[in-house]
């Protein structure tokens, strides 16, 4: 059994406020074609396929079954789906490759936030007895976390604004990003968070190809080897957690080997500026680390795909030679309840 598994290709849509002119499969399919074309693989060559998406976002049960039309699952394919961000689909595919039952995997994720009101939709993730009946929206919960950070002296509003500004400035070199360049910090949406502290709402899709061992070297000039990957979840209730910290991120990073050697790049899935503060602390990232060169989730946040995009962006920098050792992070749930960390490396140059 080989333990060398790499991301060998990454593709994503241009992320837009709405893609209502396209169905989910119409939005997704060009990304699948792109990522397969990068490797020369056809659907029938791929050993395992795994995807992440959410029925609640789509407003329809079994929504993922129609997305499968874009894959061309004929003859039948070995395939699975998680009702999670695509980063966890990548994790499932990674375990599949570790078993040796497949040596390549296609992982994709998509989310269209435009059909519904995503702030309201996400309230349905919360404790259905005590919390969901109050409809506390995702911005409100992030704002509670931000205030806790300010109270603890971990950040202040100018520092949060600087995170927003840096992210959107970096996004100017990312043609897929939805929010780029100079974006006003704006009014309070839910104080202390201003509109500039919050992610854009939009539609998008992403896909990566994983390959094991020599197969990875055949498919990619400089594979992004997964040196470690792990994910952890915390208690659900906000009132039992220390919102200024992310022990699940720290533990996942430890298990993924992130602290063994410094990384040069980190792609963090921090939809809110304040969450970058929490993640930097948990991951012990100092100013020597290039954080979110893509602009991160503050520049484009297609829900269910944004975590997978962090994996893809980090890998793409290794592919291009812009990074030798990168950390990629994905999150799920209210106030960073669940976190995944991967450490990617390129071969020495």
């Amino acid at each position, binding site marked *: *059994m080989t333990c060398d598994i790499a991301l060998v290709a990454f593709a994503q849509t241009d992320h837009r406020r709405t893609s209502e002119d396209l169905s989910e499969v119409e939005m997704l399919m060009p990304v699948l074609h792109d990522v397969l074309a990068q490797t020369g693989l056809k659907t029938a060559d791929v050993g395992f*396929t795994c995807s992440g998406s*959410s*029925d*609640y976002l789509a*407003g*329809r*049960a*079994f929504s*993922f*079954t*129609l997305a*499968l*039309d874009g894959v061309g*699952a*004929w*003859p*039948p*394919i*070995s*395939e*699975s*789906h*998680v*009702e*999670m961000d695509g980063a*966890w689909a990548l*994790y*499932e595919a990674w*375990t*599949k490759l*570790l*078993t*040796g*039952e497949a040596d390549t995997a296609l992982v994709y994720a998509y989310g269209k936030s435009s059909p519904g009101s995503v702030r309201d*939709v*996400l309230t*349905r*993730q*919360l*404790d*259905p*007895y005590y919390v*969901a009946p109050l409809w506390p929206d995702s911005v409100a919960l992030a704002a509670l976390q931000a205030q806790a950070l300010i109270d603890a002296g971990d950040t202040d509003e100018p520092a949060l604004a600087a995170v927003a500004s840096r992210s959107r400035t970096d996004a100017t070199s990312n043609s897929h990003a939805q929010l780029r360049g100079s974006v006003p910090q704006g009014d309070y949406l839910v104080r202390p968070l201003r509109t500039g502290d919050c992610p854009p709402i939009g539609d998008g899709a992403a896909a990566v190809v994983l390959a094991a061992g020599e197969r990875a070297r055949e498919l990619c000039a400089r594979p992004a080897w997964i040196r470690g990957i*792990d*994910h*952890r*979840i*915390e*208690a*659900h*209730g906000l009132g039992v957690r220390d919102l200024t910290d992310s*022990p*699940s991120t720290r*533990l996942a990073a430890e298990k993924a080997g992130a602290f063994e050697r410094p990384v040069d790049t980190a792609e963090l899935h921090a939809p809110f500026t304040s969450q970058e503060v929490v993640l930097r602390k948990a991951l012990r990232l100092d100013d020597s680390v290039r954080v979110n060169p893509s602009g991160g989730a503050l520049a484009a946040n297609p829900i269910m795909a944004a975590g997978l995009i962090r994996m893809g962006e980090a890998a793409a920098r290794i592919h291009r030679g812009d990074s030798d050792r990168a950390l990629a992070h994905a999150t*799920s*749930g*209210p106030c960073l*309840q*669940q976190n995944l960390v991967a450490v990617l490396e390129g071969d020495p140059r």
Partner: protein
Amino acid sequence: MSKEPVAVVGIGQTKHVAARRDVSIAGLVREAAGRALGDAELTWADIDAVVIGKAPDFFEGVMMPELYLADALGAVGKPMLRVHTAGSVGGSTALVAANLVAARVHGTVLTVAFEKQSESNAMWGLSLPIPFQQPLLAGAGGFFAPHVRAYMRRTGAPDTVGSLVAYKDRRNALKNPYAHLHEHDITLEKVQASPMLWDPIRYSETCPSSDGACAMVLTDRSGAARAPRPPAWMLGGAMRSEPTLFAGKDAVSPQAGKDCAADVYRQAGIADPRRDIDAVEMYVPFSWYEPMWLENLGFAAEGEGWKLTESGVTELDGDLPVNMSGGVLSTNPIGASGMIRFAEAALQVRGQAGEHQVEGARRVLGHAYGGGSQFFSMWLVGSEPPD
């Protein structure tokens, strides 16, 4: 280095009923998980990761409910995955958990699947109105009944076969304390006299709607060596998918089902399933699917599946017992139904199936499917570890 062998050392189910009004969603899931841990004589601290599955979130109206269930499943500080592959999800969830052990990522994994259908209404969840689309004209049974007619036309099966399956499964359920339907006064005449809902499917040939959960503890070789009771060993497992609707689809005997079974048999070294496999827990939500799957899974030649059913081969004391537990026809918490098949297969090879035990069962197949007969997951478990 080959894969780590995977063993089932703990199994737990709730008593499946139409509505569990005494527990929360967490309470339902926890009950099955606690029983699985108890069976394995392990504690929450012994579990390295949790893999949970269920069908659409709209059934309970909780988006990604694993987030809320983390505390109840002892997952805090651990990895937790949530699988959703439509009706096959219970089986797929177990296979994702098994891969974590096979890949040596974790030593011991808890896997759980559930549905608490009484929180809403299954038909509501399954048929949310979609603008511009023609409403489904016939309900769930109406979706499958035309395929049953196509099977009858193709094979010349007599129209009594469906009621034989229902009569068998409902009698088997009487021997399973966890089954939902316990129809003590069931007779073949009653099945055959039940109303024809979606001709050719009768009321008694359809599955109920249940609240229920199922859980298993999966572990590696060293975990199995410490197990208090005989483990079930996974000899093969696979998933296959094909599109929902496509030109040339064989809805009676989908290619994905055939390919999935072939993959499992290859892994397990099964040359002749009819000879080498002792019993089957298959996903039969409408009775006619038993003969259809018997052919799809290679237990009978094409067109011959109904003959096995008609001649009693699939009875509990037959040569190839099918759905000893009473099957989906007696118990259907949708998201859990696939895992119940997998778990019941494991109970058989562990010799722990109680009154519905097949004497000497050594290799048993667990089978699940979902969507428009498009997603398949299966595993073969044995009483002896793989070679």
